[in-house]
């Protein structure tokens, strides 16, 4: 009995091996591009990861599920907002899945932890959110591009806007991790008045800001600036409203109110300005198509996280087209990507020498359209803004 089983197995193996040999040449002809996508798909910020995935999938649909004419396979991995998990997933994608490209990364600390395996393996990577200052400066790398911004650029814009609004004294609150520190530094860089308080809270576990809000109230500032991405932003704005501060001290934000939090914040978000490099109503054709198709499919506006991730697809497409699908020609792809020769949903932009976009930043506000709460561009705060770390970047040629 055993013998028969063994023989059958052997025969099976032989057939399978034969089939593989026959099939191999066709596989080589139809090369598939493998993309590893690292984001957060669990916990309170899963909404961000899902929005990024939805936008990425939509962009692939718009490109006929092909990048540079080659079919695409995407492997999504969840970093659970943990640097140690992020780096593990990155290594898995590089070493065992052998992906051609990496895309994603929401959190600056997760991205910084994952950067070493990316740089060591020379994996061509598009970072679609995390904007740690180190990436624009000393840690810049020839095959790493960003479709987002440096962390401090958006709060710099808000600092300028607070000058316009004649704010003299401001109180800063943010989470104690790489991005939080960058954000508060950003406001400090452009704000001309006095910074009378600077609070950093434990991240990501502290969701109760009672002590910090009491402190802000006691300091009697003209304005409060806050940076709380994802679910923490909903909690911060809710507690700001619960504390009765809303009528007393105005709040200015960066990355705290977005189209993901608006359905939950509703009226609480009205009257709280923010800055962003992309808003869903920017009047260019690529953006109109993106927002309209996204709304048709998902019934709500995409967030800025999604817009940046959408841009990764045309960027990669332009790079792969330039080398005619020869993915081993990394330098060719790099040169092509550096031109930023594609229709971005934020309008056209250039890359700085550190592969960080040079772009406009807009003032955004919340408006109620019928039953829906949406973001609206109010004004342009800065034009063609370049991050201030690019000179620290020694980009090899």
């Amino acid at each position, binding site marked *: 009995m055993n013998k028969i089983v063994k023989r059958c197995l052997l025969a099976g193996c032989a057939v399978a091996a034969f089939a593989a040999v026959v099939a191999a040449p066709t596989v080589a002809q139809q090369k598939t591009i493998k993309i590893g996508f690292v984001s957060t798909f*669990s*916990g309170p910020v899963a909404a961000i990861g899902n929005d990024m995935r939805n936008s990425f999938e939509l962009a692939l649909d718009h490109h006929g599920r092909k990048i540079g004419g080659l079919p695409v396979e995407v492997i999504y991995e969840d970093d659970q907002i943990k640097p140690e998990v992020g780096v593990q997933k990155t290594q898995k994608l590089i070493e065992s899945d052998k992906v051609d490209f990496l895309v994603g990364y929401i959190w600056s600390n997760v991205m910084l932890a994952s950067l070493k395996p990316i740089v060591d393996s020379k994996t061509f990577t598009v970072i679609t959110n995390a904007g740690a200052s180190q990436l624009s400066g000393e840690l810049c790398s020839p095959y790493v591009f960003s479709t987002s911004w440096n962390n401090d650029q958006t709060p710099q814009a808000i600092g300028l806007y607070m000058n316009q609004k004649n704010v003299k004294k401001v109180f800063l609150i943010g989470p104690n991790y790489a991005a939080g520190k960058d954000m508060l530094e950003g406001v400090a860089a452009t704000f001309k008045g006095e910074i009378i308080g*600077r609070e950093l809270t434990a991240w990501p576990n502290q969701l109760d800001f009672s002590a910090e809000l009491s402190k802000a109230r006691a300091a009697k500032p003209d304005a409060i600036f806050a940076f709380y991405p994802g679910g923490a932003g909903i909690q911060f704005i809710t507690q700001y409203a*619960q504390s009765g501060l809303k009528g007393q001290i105005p709040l200015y934000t960066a990355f705290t109110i977005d189209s993901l939090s608006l359905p939950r914040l509703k009226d609480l978000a009205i009257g709280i300005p923010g800055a962003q490099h992309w808003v869903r109503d920017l009047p260019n054709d690529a953006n109109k198509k993106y927002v309209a198709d996204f709304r048709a499919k998902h019934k709500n506006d995409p967030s800025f996280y999604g817009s940046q991730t959408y841009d990764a697809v045309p960027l990669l497409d332009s790079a792969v087209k330039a080398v005619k699908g020869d993915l081993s020609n990394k330098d060719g792809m790099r040169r092509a990507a550096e031109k930023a020769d594609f229709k971005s949903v934020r309008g056209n932009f250039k890359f700085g020498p550190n592969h960080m976009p040079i772009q406009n930043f807009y003032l955004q506000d919340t408006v109620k359209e019928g039953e829906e709460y949406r973001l609206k561009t109010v004004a342009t705060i800065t034009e063609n803004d370049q991050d201030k770390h690019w000179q620290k970047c020694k980009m090899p040629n």
Partner: protein
Amino acid sequence: MLYLIEQCLNGIQLGMLLFLLAAGLTLIFGIMDLVNLAHGSLYMLGAYFAATFITLTDSFLAGLGLGLVATLVAGMFMEVIAIRPLYGRDHLDHVLGTFGLLIFFNELVRLIWGPEGRTISLPPEMLTAVQVVPGIYYPLYRLIIILATLSVAALLYILVMRTRVGMLIRAGASNREMVGALGVNIKLLYTLVFGLGAALAGFAGMMQAPISFVQIGMGENILILAFVVIIIGGIGSIRGAFVAAVIVGLIDTMGRAFLPDAVRLFLSYSAGSSLGPALSSMLIYALMAGVLIFRPEGLFPAVGK
């Protein structure tokens, strides 16, 4: 001065929340001699039940009430099925068994409610601050938490110290064999105590939910604080849990409020911003270590043990 009072209120509010968790934990630990790591799961379940029932009934209060009942039932169910086999066994078995339950509940919640979590929105009339004393505005909802917990604490005191069930609970804590020998259904009593602890934990979860977020694993961090509270207060003592919860809440909040500034006096501004929060989160553990060294039985040890 006014600022100090406001921060005291913040500390007391955190203490109240910790008390709700610690009371159930200390009852179960002190009376049933069971280490329950899954207590945080009941906190999480309470918040999820409340979120679901508030959506279904469209009423904040009805949602909380139904959520409370559901957590009570879930707790009693859990005791009968999973906790009973653990009685009388080694503490290590309790830790292993209830840690398994913790993982089980996290995955169960993921299956039922999905991974993304929920928010509970307060009714608009609770989104204000009230003047507590002239010059001090305090969020109404946090005031409600303090008052609601104080009434729960009073009810708990009456239940344990003034009723027949309470007498049995205390007797069970002192000598469970004797209580059983006198013809009391000790099994049923344990189920009730466990259900009560579960309801208290669930209540804490649903009271905290509108301030923070309903998510998988939300009870795990706060459970550690609750263990610190019962160790400082004395295991099995509700009075100790109450006092220790307020102390821990105050120390944690005061640390967050004043330590960064204190560090800035000696070091640079940015060092204060990042070192301050780190130091303040260590304070309560320092207190616990001190209590373990000088009064290992806790500040208010349960009598008759």
